[in-house]
């Protein structure tokens, strides 16, 4: 793991250790959820003598005489000479006279937290980057040394923060912090790593799940992370000692399985359970992404006798990894197993309905199965979701609306999202820094946000943010504030269903259907006759969705009409990139994917836009899948079109990858998943050459190290070279 100064955002603390203290005072708010990203607290100083203190691992000094595990056999362990100590040691740096001392912090996701050594190695790479050369720090070059880094990671299962303190050079301390009992030292006897193995494995599982769920829950919002001072790494590539995917599947998942619901569950899930939670979602995702189906199936089969409900997860693994016959066989035998009621019967039926629908496009059977799923699991939004989808696919719009109206909404459920757990204080004015600032840091803020200079792609990394802000300010406020864009949770999903119905019927017919089948509360109050008695009360939220749909449709129709008019009169139809983005998002919500893709393309002709790129990428990937299923075209036709789409996909992936990197994000599930099929078909070498031929070296390097290397080294498949 090589980090550069430009890739490390930092926040200045108002006093050294403030962030860690604040985090630990808020632990009670993390319990029973995934918690925030990991925290890295850095203690920096500038030595008083002009001479920089040389790093000298042999001068470990007079700190307490605890056991030294430093038999450093392998590369990892030899990086620093560490010792595990529960007592507060008197570190080396305290003996150094200092000119300036300060504390900073940042968040991080993806680090391998399965072992204190891996964490120490990562902390070391931060030290190396910051000490490597003078750091441009709020307008001045600073020769910082780092005396200490504390790494803290929330372990949901044991309700504690796991802390690793690395004193440079050479000492390592580990302790836990809980909301109720404060700091707790980890025993330091020789068996320490053995007795605490499960704590570390749990912590590792939490870190990996956080990384994946941040991406999964926010897929629709472009994997957005609002905490800019976060380094986002690919957890599957961070294994210093073992392979992360294998460790998660074979050890982490079985250890934590019965406590998976502690982590929370996706927004569509009302009843979080052993098989419906973030742990299971991550398990399914990792298995597919790392091509580890065989291992996962093996693990699940071993666990099945004790936890029969795992057949639900096994059937998903089968479906997701092209074992569909096994999947249908398993579902059949499970569903007929006993005439008594399996508590997870509706879950099995829900999986069956989903794949009958998505994989087989067998809407008739999907409808019958989802009707049963709803009977057995009427409180789950998901079962109703597939019921409504099936009705729509079969053009039974009336029942689609009635079923949608009955769908249970989750009210208090939020998507998982990295959140700040430390406040950003404007630091006391530092009179020693000059006013003449050449860097990216705003003097009035505590945020140090460097520009990663190792990757330059002018179009992307050189985007002028003031221009973007101006576009935002000048945008049509109605288009900007379309309320459907801020729908959350099950309401977002329900809106998608209503939009599908609306696309099928058109607005006028939809209004007619609404009037025929529903009554609004106000109507009832004024008119209690028989006619009304036969109708259903339209749920308030559904009534609201109708109004939002109207507003989206109005904008969409106006745009289409205007554009037609301009095209007919051969006039240029000008919109800013941001406006095209808003129109594209509106069209996406209305399921007009083709028109949406056109809007994104128009916008991208003018400047780069991460949102437009991400949406367009998803569109091409979907088109690619559809194309490969299109048996009416000839092989040759398919191959030609595939080639075009693949090149578009590669282009978008490259650009988004550069953009993410500029914002300290080196892991995107969307990019990995989008590239997977193209890579399988085209082969690594060809993709690599395509990128090489079109992009600067720094970009190619990033693309290879972040994406290609993942497929090459961290998946179980042999990609064609």
């Amino acid at each position: 793991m090589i980090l550069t100064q430009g890739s490390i955002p930092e926040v200045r603390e108002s006093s050294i250790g403030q962030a860690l203290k604040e985090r630990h005072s808020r632990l009670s708010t993390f319990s029973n959820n995934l918690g925030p990203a990991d925290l890295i607290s850095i203690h920096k100083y500038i030595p008083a003598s002009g001479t920089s203190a040389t790093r000298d691992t042999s001068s470990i000094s007079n700190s307490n005489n605890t056991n030294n595990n430093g038999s450093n056999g392998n590369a990892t362990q030899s990086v620093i000479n560490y010792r595990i100590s529960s007592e507060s040691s008197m570190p080396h740096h305290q003996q150094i006279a200092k000119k300036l001392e300060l504390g900073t912090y940042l968040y991080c996701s993806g680090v391998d937290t399965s072992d204190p050594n891996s964490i120490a190695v990562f902390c070391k790479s931060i030290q190396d980057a910051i000490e490597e050369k003078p750091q441009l720090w709020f307008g001045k070059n600073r020769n910082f040394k780092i005396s200490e880094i504390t790494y803290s990671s929330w372990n949901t299962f044991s309700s504690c923060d796991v802390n690793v303190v690395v004193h440079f050079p050479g000492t390592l301390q580990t302790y836990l912090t809980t909301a109720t009992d404060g700091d707790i030292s980890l025993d330091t006897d020789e068996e320490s790593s053995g007795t605490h193995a499960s704590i570390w494995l749990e912590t590792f599982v939490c870190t990996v799940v956080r990384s994946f769920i941040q991406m999964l829950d926010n897929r629709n919002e472009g994997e957005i992370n609002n905490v800019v001072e976060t380094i986002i790494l690919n957890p599957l590539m961070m294994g210093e000692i073992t392979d992360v995917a294998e460790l998660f599947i074979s050890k982490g998942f079985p250890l934590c399985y019965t406590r998976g619901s502690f982590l929370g569950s996706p927004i569509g899930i009302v009843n979080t359970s052993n098989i419906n939670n973030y742990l299971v979602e991550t398990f399914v995702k990792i298995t597919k992404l790392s091509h580890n189906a065989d291992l996962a199936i093996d693990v699940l089969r071993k666990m099945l006798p004790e936890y029969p409900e795992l057949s639900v997860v096994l059937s998903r693994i089968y479906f997701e990894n092209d074992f569909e016959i096994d999947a249908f066989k398993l579902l059949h035998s499970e569903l007929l197993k006993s005439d008594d009621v399996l508590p997870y019967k509706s879950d099995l039926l829900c999986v069956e309905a989903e794949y009958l629908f998505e994989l087989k496009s067998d809407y008739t059977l999907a409808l019958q199965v989802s009707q049963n799923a709803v009977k057995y699991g009427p409180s789950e939004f998901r079962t109703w979701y597939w019921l409504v989808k099936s009705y729509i696919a079969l053009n039974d719009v009336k029942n689609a609306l009635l079923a949608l109206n009955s769908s249970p909404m989750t009210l208090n459920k939020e998507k998982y999202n990295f959140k700040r757990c430390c406040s950003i204080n404007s630091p006391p004015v530092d009179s020693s820094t000059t006013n003449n600032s050449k860097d990216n840091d705003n003097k009035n803020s505590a945020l140090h946000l460097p520009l990663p200079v190792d990757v330059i792609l002018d179009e992307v990394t050189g985007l002028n943010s003031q221009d973007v802000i101006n576009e935002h300010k000048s945008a049509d406020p109605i288009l900007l504030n379309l309320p459907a864009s801020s729908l959350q949770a099950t309401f977002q999903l329900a809106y998608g269903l209503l939009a599908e119905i609306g696309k099928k019927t058109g607005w006028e017919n939809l209004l007619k259907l609404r009037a025929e089948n529903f009554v609004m509360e106000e109507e009832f109050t004024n008119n209690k006759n028989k006619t009304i008695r036969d109708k259903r009360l339209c749920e308030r939220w559904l009534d609201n969705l109708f109004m939002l749909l109207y507003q989206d449709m109005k904008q969409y129709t106006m745009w289409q009409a205007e554009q037609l008019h301009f095209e007919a009169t051969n006039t240029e139809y000008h919109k800013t990139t941001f406006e095209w983005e808003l129109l594209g998002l509106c069209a996406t919500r209305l399921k007009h994917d083709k028109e949406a893709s056109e809007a994104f393309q128009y916008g991208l002709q003018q400047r780069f836009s991460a949102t437009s790129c991400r949406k367009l990428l998803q569109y091409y990937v979907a088109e690619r899948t559809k194309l490969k299923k299109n048996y009416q075209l000839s092989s040759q036709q398919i191959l030609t079109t595939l080639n075009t789409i693949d090149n578009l996909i590669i282009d978008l992936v490259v650009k988004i990858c550069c953009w993410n990197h500029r914002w300290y994000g080196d892991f995107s599930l969307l990019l990995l998943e989008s590239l997977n099929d193209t890579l399988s078909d085209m082969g690594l070498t060809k993709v690599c050459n395509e990128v090489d031929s079109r992009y600067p070296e720094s970009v190619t390097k990033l693309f290879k190290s972040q994406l290609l290397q993942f497929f090459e080294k961290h998946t179980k498949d042999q990609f064609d070279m």
Partner: protein
Amino acid sequence: KGEGIVSLTVGKVDASIALLTTDDHLIIEFPTILLPEDIKTGSIVQFNVSHNYESESNVFTKFLNLQNDIFQKYGQLEPSPPHLSK
């Protein structure tokens, strides 16, 4: 017009509430304690619903008596509360 029969499928059953569904997608949350003891997810229950006019009229009479009692006690003139002079 005061009677009817309803057939329902038992969905989720928990300590106090059972979720019942009709074939046309109505959902009813019904207290478990008011359902037959041997029901479980997937069971079919039947409700014969009727309007109980007799019980209704008894309840109304009781209500009238209560209101008359309150009026007797507090709706007539009563001595004013002692007034404090400074």
